[in-house]
């Protein structure tokens, strides 16, 4: 059962506490995505899992065994780094085969595995090239190939796509999703890209300041964020937060309204607002408006004819409101 469990894992660098008693349970074969703002400890968590960094406290289990004291290679993991970390003086073939040479596999088996990975990642024609002769996407695929040939129980990805351009990102994202289907391995994937998280994850783990704020399926997090941080972090454009009378009326300190649950009122409405900016994305239109007390974002259809300076009345879908108490925690419906 190569699932992954963290129990109260803590880590400090000097006086800086980076992970605060993090506990996680990731099932065998699950695709878990860790998201969170920069510096919240995502990479550190991954490095502790990989054995590149030692935890100060807590237990790490892979496949039901405590691995705290095992070297990275003994943990049956493979890690893909944000910087690719290819061996610059070795060609693509050797980059993939290098680690296998130390695992006691015979040459024929190494060849077989590298060929299979190369075919899977369309690297067959590039096997003799050095990393500096590859494009960014090819380098990234090589790095993924190097992980695949190890046939690990657990894949660890640290922002593997952040150096790629938008189109390549989408392609590689799909490739990783396909890879997960083919290999059925446990994957833990760090990103700060919302779309990557929402599309790839079986389960998203939202971290903030060294703590796990919430875990759940993408839709669970979207529909029922446990606190203000998760509510603001998941979903783009960001959820609108409104305090004051509107919140008080709903029995909350703050209410959250997703941009798609705001609309222009045909008559009546909740707030007078002035449009300050409009973004046409083709399939959607984001309208940024200001009321007397707050700035709101509204998602409209493609045909929206609003322009900046327009005076409008806004209303919101009462059934879709998220309510939060003074501590920022969700008030159940």
């Amino acid at each position, binding site marked *: 059962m190569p699932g992954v469990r963290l129990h109260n894992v803590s880590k400090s660098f000097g006086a800086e506490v980076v992970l605060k008693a993090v506990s996680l349970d990731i099932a065998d074969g699950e695709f878990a995505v860790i998201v969170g703002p920069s510096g919240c400890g995502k990479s550190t968590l991954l*490095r502790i899992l*990989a*054995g*590149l960094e030692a935890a100060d406290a807590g237990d790490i289990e892979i496949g039901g065994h405590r691995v705290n004291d095992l*070297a*990275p*290679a003994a943990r049956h*993991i*493979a*890690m893909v*780094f*944000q*910087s*690719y*970390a*290819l*061996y*610059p*003086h070795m060609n693509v073939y050797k980059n993939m085969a*290098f*680690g296998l040479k*130390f*695992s006691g596999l015979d040459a024929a088996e190494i060849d077989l595995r590298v060929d299979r990975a190369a075919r899977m990642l369309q690297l067959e024609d590039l096997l003799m090239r*050095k*990393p*500096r*002769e*590859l494009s*960014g996407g090819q*380098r990234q695929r090589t790095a993924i190939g*190097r992980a695949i040939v*190890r046939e690990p129980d657990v894949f660890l990805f640290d922002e593997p796509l952040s*150096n790629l351009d938008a189109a390549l990102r989408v392609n590689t994202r799909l490739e990783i999703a396909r890879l997960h289907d083919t290999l059925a391995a446990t994957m833990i994937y760090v990103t700060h890209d919302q779309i990557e998280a929402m599309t790839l994850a079986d389960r998203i783990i939202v971290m903030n300041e060294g703590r796990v704020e919430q875990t759940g399926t993408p839709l669970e997090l979207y529909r029922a964020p446990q606190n203000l941080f998760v509510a603001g972090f998941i979903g783009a454009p960001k959820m609108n937060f409104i305090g004051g009378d509107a919140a008080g009326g709903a029995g909350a300190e703050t209410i959250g309204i997703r941009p798609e649950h705001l609309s222009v009122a045909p008559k009546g409405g909740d707030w007078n607002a002035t449009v300050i900016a409009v973004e046409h994305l083709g399939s959607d239109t984001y309208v940024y408006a200001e009321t007397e007390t707050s700035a709101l974002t509204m998602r409209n259809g493609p045909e929206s004819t609003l322009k900046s300076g327009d005076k409008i009345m806004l209303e919101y879908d009462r059934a879709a409101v998220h309510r939060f108490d003074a501590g920022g925690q969700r008030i159940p419906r």
Partner: protein
Amino acid sequence: MRLKFTPIAIHTVLLTYTAIALLPIALIIANAFKSRRAIFTDPLALPGPDSFSLRGFAKVLAVSDFELYFINSLTVTLVTLALVLLFAAMAAWALSEYAFRGRLFIGLVFAVGIMVPIRLGTVSILELMVALDLTNTLTALILVYTAQSLPLAIFILTEFIAQIPKDLKDAARCDGVSEIHIFFAIIVPLIRPAIATVAIFVMVPIWNDLWFPLILSPGEDTQTITLGVQQFIGQYVTDWNAVLASLTLAILPILALYLLLSRQLVRGLTAGAVK
């Protein structure tokens, strides 16, 4: 105000410096091919049909144990080079990669070694070599030169090793590569240009040194080339033909080594490793 140098000014300065540095060497080589009389009447002239002579070379090769000196120098230089590069690279790797007790202290010891000239310890070194019964051996020279060269070599290599991205070593660790293999299969190939630089720094002073051969190994069988040349320099008469010829010959191997090493000074070797 910032001074601005035009490329012409910069090149003038550099060319002047190069000329000053190369002139003595050019003089030695030119005069090595001249007759004794021509050396003295017109030292700055190039060898012409009248003045051309190979007498010096003939004398050096015929009279002295030149080949022996040559082999001695080469042995000392190459063995020292191999030892220094191996130990310095390993020490630099350890000092920059691993946190261990006493790391700072060891680093400091090496730093001090750069600043304190080893010749200050000549007397103790001689006593030590006598006690170890190593006088008049090449081993004595090799040991002293290795000690002398290590600090600077470690210093330079540490800087280079520290520049190798951390992810690269971590990727190898995840790949199950042992530390010793990470060192030899990843670190060493990546710092090859630095190793070549260090090799040049280390080799030239050793090849040219007169001090330690004179003190530790002046015996007939262990003379190095710098020491061997001295037999042509007398108190009253100096055989300039032979001196210049042997100096010219002495330049050759070091020049060949330099050319060999400088080809390794390719930069941008890490290009493509990390974005």
